[in-house]
């Protein structure tokens, strides 16, 4: 499915944009100039669920960014044991937690961490997955055998177990550090790396499969004949042609990473307090199942909304970037 979109992109690069434009410009879309990206955007906008997801995402971003302007991080980490476990009120709309911190402010700063982890972990898994997939798909032979056996082995270990073992493996190895004037617990980096290192396998297989079919194409052969070095062929000729499925997988990967963070932090092996994340706000919240439902309700709800909206967006992107759904 990726190869045909790949084709149109490739021709754009090789034969100048005019031809693509005129080819797509005629026909059912009328005389307007349409680029592949424009076409994808048009299809995305028609996808009701995707637009809905994008709107929720926008609202969530407003919430975590705007909220940070109103409440400071020190307020979010401020403990006031006198007011511990007080139910939602005007002063604390989402109530306070076991040590009297404001849950609303913590969901805002926890949101930063959870979203950061989601995006950064996908960056790690993208780097790793694309690297492994590209190398083994392009070069084949023994490189392929070794890398794919390793990928398969990692795939055969249930992911949550691997995640737990890996976070235990890396935990406590990175100290607290300052970044953009905020101090982050080293566990944030640990969890990013761990989630990245446990989720690249699917991407690697996807990229490998696309490389296997693309490398047999004439334009790669042509590049070879022109003496283009392998590195450049991989990066400039083959990789751009397999971007569409990578983008979709990466988008859905963000949702997966946020969920993974929630699971690991819920088990107490993820982000360590006082840094808040939606996952660690839920840690041990079940001991307050009865007495303080606001503790676990709000961070959980925000996680569900975020993951849901990203899944909607990813689904929309899949349809929008799929050339078979050309209308």
């Amino acid at each position, binding site marked *: 499915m990726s190869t045909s979109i790949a084709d149109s992109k490739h021709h754009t690069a090789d034969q100048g944009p005019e031809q693509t434009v005129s080819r797509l410009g005629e026909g059912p879309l009328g005389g307007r100039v349409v680029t592949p990206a424009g076409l994808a955007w048009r299809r995305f906008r028609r996808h009701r669920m995707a637009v809905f997801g994008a709107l929720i995402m926008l609202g969530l971003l407003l919430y975590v960014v705007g909220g940070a302007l109103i409440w400071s991080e020190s307020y979010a980490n401020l403990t006031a044991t006198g007011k511990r476990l007080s139910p939602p009120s005007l002063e604390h709309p989402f109530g306070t937690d076991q040590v009297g911190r404001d849950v609303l402010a913590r969901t805002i700063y926890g949101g930063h961490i959870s979203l950061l982890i989601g995006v950064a972990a996908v960056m790690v898994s993208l780097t790793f997955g694309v690297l492994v997939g590209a190398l083994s798909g392009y070069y084949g032979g023994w490189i392929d055998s070794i890398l794919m056996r390793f990928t398969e082995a990692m795939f055969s270990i249930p992911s949550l177990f691997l995640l737990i*073992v890996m976070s235990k493996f890396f935990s406590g190895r990175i100290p607290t550090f300052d970044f953009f004037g905020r101090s982050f617990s080293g566990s944030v980096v640990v969890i990013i790396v761990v989630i990245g290192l446990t989720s690249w396998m699917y991407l690697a297989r996807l990229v490998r499969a696309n490389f296997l079919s693309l490398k047999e194409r004439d334009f790669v052969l042509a590049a070879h004949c022109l003496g283009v070095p392998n590195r450049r062929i991989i990066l400039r000729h083959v990789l751009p042609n397999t971007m569409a499925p990578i983008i979709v997988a990466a988008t859905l990967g963000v949702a997966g990473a946020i969920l993974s963070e929630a699971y690991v932090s819920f088990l107490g092996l993820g982000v360590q307090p006082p840094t808040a994340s939606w996952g660690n706000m839920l840690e041990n919240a079940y001991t307050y*199942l009865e007495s303080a439902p606001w503790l676990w309700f709000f961070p*959980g709800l925000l996680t569900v909304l975020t*993951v849901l909206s990203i899944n909607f967006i990813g689904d929309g992107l899949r349809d929008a970037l799929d050339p078979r759904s050309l209308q």
Partner: protein
Amino acid sequence: MTEYIIRRTLQAVPLLFIISIILFVLMSNMGDPLATLGGRQPPRGEDRLRLERQLGLDQPFYIQYIYWLVGNDWRMVDTTGDGVPNAYGTRRGILRGDWGTSLVTRRPVLEMIGERLPNTLLLMGTVQVVVILVSLGIGIYAALRQYSLVDNVVTTGAFIGFSMPIFWLALMLMYIFAVNFKRWGLPYFPTVGMYDPMVGKTVPQVLWHMVLPVTSLSLISIAVYSRYIRASMLDVINQDYMRTARSKGLAERAILWQHALKNASLPLVTLVGLDLPLLLAGAVVTERIFAWPGMGRLFLDHVERIDTPVLMGILMLVSLAVVVFQLLTDIVYTWLDPRIRYR
């Protein structure tokens, strides 16, 4: 086909070796297993050294791996902890059926797993059966009435289902059906354990305690499964051979169950093939929340104590199951769809 099965089985052997090496590397660097052994006071100095030697933890990583793999009864080891090898080891290694001994409880790993496995299989097996039955019903119904109200609810529900962390769903269910039902004076579901110790482990007790965990585990999987079943049914019911079957005058029921479902069940087989081996592993998070004494909790408890033999045992068992079920899935494919051939 036979040749294919033999080749795949032979390929599985190095795969399991790679898995065991990856896991062993990770585990031997997870932390200090001795730190929690002495209770509140971790062993120090001489004691610590002696313990390390007795447990073989002073050996380099590859030696520990070899001992775990093939045992150490062929080599002199230090059983007194004085630094001098004095007797042959007693371990036989996992390849000869010895899964090792827990560092924490000093009991054989296989025995500990054997205790928990039935509990987990009871819970997860029930979940799997519920999920397959319910999602087949929902998925087929939604596919036959595409874009109807039910279909839209299913599609949206599926998205919500796989966007939801299971612990949050579990907490919500507990809050509604245990906490609030109790508050309102309705019969409420228990949230902790397998049975009430006051009553004992009777069948109704266990069933009653299974309701909430099974519901939370099933709901999410039903969402995922029914979406796949709907999609593959939609794929199949528009095929030419369905029209042929109709024009032959076959009953609608026969068409649905024999022609459509058999072909549409390929993705279902894939899903089940991926999920069945995980039944052994149990549900780490769910078992933790509902205090269900299964494999997932065994794993979590021993991760905290860095009890490598137990963790290795659980993970190798599950990985083995994953590999075996992958092969089984491929074989079932050929039965379901004779167009698929393996070479």
